[in-house]
């Protein structure tokens, strides 16, 4: 529980060392002011600030076909719709661990396929991870060990605002004396950051000031080929043997980078798979993993895939431990069957007769769907293109109720705290109410 300081004579209080569950980095040094139902962020990245902000106004009530009603009635309606469905699809899955338990319970009770809203990058990574595997690392290892970071593709800062700040903190005047000092890198081994793909934006450049930053710009469509070239260089091939494909400045830069990778003590490849070119994403990830495998024969290296907003990793982990398969799995007809092509939300909704959308972290509208009822367990500010048949506004973990979310590196699970009482049900409570309604005769 973070320390809570209450200012004298007012109901306003400051909550410090707050854990953030939004983007998946799991920053835990946020600060907010809470007064009644209002939440005002004081220390937070822009994305977290926007998602934490709450007014003092009363949240909306549950609705059935646009009519305001109670949670029980909405849950009863949702239960009867689910009971009548034959091919339900659960989308979004933006919920804390307890909420996901409830959603998976619903899938087991009524039969449904499920997928998370942010899973496209995860599945680009799984294409390599599940078929061939890789050597990965976690945030603390990057921070304390990494001496060469290769950022592949887009600058991740817009999605993961504080990644560079936290993974590669600026060197201070006397790093050995500082709290911030990494354990195993020092001035004798300066850190190098290479952007392979897009250029670093101004925020990334600012965060990385003091590090040795270089750019090898490559257009997205050619990134996979550039990674193939780098892979070849890491493998010990020379420019000459590659048939002229890498004769230019890029080739020289890649060859130099390959040398630096081989010489590094702990090189790390990072990328935001969700932002990679859909046609080439799997190849890019595969090359990164292959290079890391090669480098580990003589030195140490690892991958650090970025991604995992809204507890994506929690949903991935829980699907694995409950059903033995990752997301994009159908649980129905007496078994679980995993078919990522078939049960990706965009594909699954085409055959669905009911859509249940879960989004507790942000007011994202459900995917377009018109061939059956829509049930939304969603952020109270969600604007629906089509009024859901059942809308249950749910609280946000870390604001309206306590909860647990996984960090993007899949190892650490973080506890979120409750900041305010706004009378919103959690996803877990909403799902339990629906399950209960479904059991009733």
């Amino acid at each position, binding site marked *: 529980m973070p320390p809570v300081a209450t200012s004298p004579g007012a109901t306003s209080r400051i909550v410090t060392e707050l854990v953030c569950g939004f983007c998946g980095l799991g920053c835990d040094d946020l600060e907010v002011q809470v007064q009644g139902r209002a939440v005002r962020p004081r220390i937070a990245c822009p994305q977290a600030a926007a998602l934490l902000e709450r007014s003092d106004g009363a949240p909306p009530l549950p609705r059935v076909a646009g009519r305001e009603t109670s949670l029980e009635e909405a849950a009863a309606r949702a239960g009867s719709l689910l009971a009548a469905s034959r091919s339900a699809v659960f989308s979004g899955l933006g919920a804390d661990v307890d909420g996901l338990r409830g959603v998976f319970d619903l899938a087991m009770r009524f039969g449904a396929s499920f997928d998370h809203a942010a899973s496209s990058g995860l599945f680009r990574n799984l294409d390599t991870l599940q078929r061939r*595997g890789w050597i*990965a690392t976690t945030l603390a290892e990057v921070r304390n060990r990494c001496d060469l970071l290769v950022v592949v593709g887009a600058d991740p800062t817009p999605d993961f605002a504080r990644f560079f700040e936290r993974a590669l903190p600026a060197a201070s005047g006397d790093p050995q004396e500082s709290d911030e000092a990494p354990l195993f890198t020092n001035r004798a081994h300066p850190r190098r950051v290479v952007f392979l793909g897009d250029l670093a934006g101004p925020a990334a450049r600012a965060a990385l000031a003091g590090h040795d930053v270089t750019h090898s710009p490559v257009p997205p469509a050619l990134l996979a080929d550039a990674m193939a070239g780098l892979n070849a260089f890491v493998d010990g091939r020379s420019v000459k043997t590659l048939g002229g494909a890498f004769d230019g400045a890029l080739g020289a830069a890649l060859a130099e980078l390959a040398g630096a990778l081989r010489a590094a003590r702990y090189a790390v490849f990072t990328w935001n798979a969700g932002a990679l070119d859909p046609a080439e994403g799997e190849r890019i990830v595969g090359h990164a993993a292959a290079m890391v495998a090669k480098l*580990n024969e003589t030195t140490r290296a690892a991958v650090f895939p970025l991604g995992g907003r809204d507890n994506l990793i929690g949903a991935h982990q829980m699907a*694995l431990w409950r059903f033995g398969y990752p997301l994009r799995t159908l649980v129905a007809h*007496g078994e679980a069957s995993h078919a990522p092509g078939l049960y990706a939300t965009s594909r699954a909704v085409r055959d669905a007769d009911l859509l249940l959308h879960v989004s507790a972290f942000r007011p994202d509208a459900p995917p377009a769907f018109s061939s059956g009822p829509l049930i939304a367990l969603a952020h109270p500010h969600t604007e629906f293109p089509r009024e859901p048949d059942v809308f249950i506004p749910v609280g946000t973990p870390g604001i309206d109720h306590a909860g647990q979310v996984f960090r993007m590196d899949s190892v650490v699970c973080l506890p979120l705290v409750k900041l305010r009482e706004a009378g919103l049900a959690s996803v877990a409570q909403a799902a339990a109410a629906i*399950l209960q309604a479904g059991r009733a005769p």
Partner: protein
Amino acid sequence: MRVRITNGRIFDPASGMVDLLGNVLIEDGRIVADDPALRADETHDAAGCIVMAGGIDLHSHIAGGKVNLARLLMGEDRRAHPEPFGAFCGCGGGNAAPTTHVTGCRYSQMGYTAVFEPAMVGANARHAHLEMADIPNIDTGGFLVLGNDDFLLRLIAQGESQTAINDYVAWMLSATQTCAIKIVNPGGISAFKFNARSLDLDEAGPHYALTPRRVLQSLQRAVTELGIPHPIHLHGCNLGVPGNVATTLSTIGATEGFPLHLTHVQFHAYGTEGDRRFSSGAAEIAAAVNANPHISVDVGQIMFGQTVTASADLMAQYRNHSIASPNKWVGMDIECDAACGVVPFAYRDTSFVNALQWAIGLELFLLIEDPWRVFLTTDHPNGGPFTSYPHLIRLLMDRDFRAEQLARLHKAARAHTNLVELKREYTLEEIAIVTRAAPARTLGLKDRGHLAPGAIGDVVLYADMADREAMLSWSARREPERGRDPRQLRRSLSHGGHAARHHRRHATLGAHRRRVADGLRHFGDRLWLRGGDRGGNRAGGLARRAAGHIRAHLRHVAEGSEEDRPGAGRPMRADRPHLRLLCRHRRGAARAARPGFALFR
């Protein structure tokens, strides 16, 4: 509520009752002395049954990040073991890397009631607890992996006092809600992060210049001084390396009288004799264990077939990744805390090395004389899935069956083992010891592993069959009879071995453990966000407080119950505090509310 089980053949070596016809009386979930005057609400005739306490597996990788990575890699295994027919409960499947629900069902169907995840990495503890909360039917607990965490290595390298180390260990146990300390390749996992490829017992590792011996001894002292019931649970140096028998013998020599548990010792019992430079070191290890009463082992028997190896020892897993089958593997450096490596593997009886590994494990079982110091494990899933235990038990109990199996092995392997000369056959009493009584004793669980008054009502009835494999396996009649829930008892008896209990919904499970996970201290950024020092100060302060609690509790225990304790002066393990950290599962509201459940919080 009283339940009486009558006319069973009772095997309860911890209470000295072996093969006695008798009754077991359970009152409100606890075993009480049977008194004919007490009327039972339910009576079950166990004629023709073997009656034992619930089984305890003290080393089985059932939950946490690496197990989930194993599930991810083992899609084929999952598809080959789908959900059973019948009413659907969404239970999942798998054999080498089963889902949580299948884990709980198969264990309970084999008569096990408590299982310990032996490698909980601190950074991953919350995940492991959340996952274990989804495992039905059995109690679960975890051992904390230390000995490669940079925080501890720094403490030792900077010459901090043993008190500071004890404080840190106490704080970590408290923060992660674990009940013992496991060391995996002491210093070696950290060394691999600095690109060292091996680290022997007396070799100084990179950066900290610490030897594994030093790390081991620091933590052994901490565990002893804190009064943790289970000794250091050691996965030693050089796992799987031919010739590692010398390292293992040196490790036993390095204990200086401190108790030590050597885990999956089969993987640490390899010599280099013979033309293939790979031989059995079982005789030497067994001789050393027999001569050193402070050493205990679990075997980590390998079983032929497909499995997956999941270990925190990335150094060793990296060495072996090229023989992965199917050919894929995952490695991960974790949070300045530990690491993990997951390598699918198929043990083949036509392989010389695998066949000899199989024989070495059995040699160890048969040559170590004291069954109270050897525990039955396959290091699930590393040596083989836990569902192969009944087969393993038959190998131990049936010499002819063993010889038959041996005859199928790789010829050269047969020539390298003296297994055929080992005439010993385990008795049912010894099986009850290695699967129940002894694990309970080493873990300090005084209300488990036996059927004396005061024990939890975990009673298992096995229909007595000559084929012990059939008798004990999950597809035979093997439901654990949990006296505290008579409905379950009735059902499994009336179903006579039908897997009725498989279909239990998740929704009714896990309510209790979830609270443990909720209550875990937040330590996501012990090193990551703030660098070492500030995190260290914070941890240090908490650690001091936690250790103070432990000492206060120990004093209380020592003062309060000294005279009624056998062997006064030598603290009885069962009285020590950490067993309270066992995460109880499905015990009902009354038990959950029992004071002292989480001592340090």
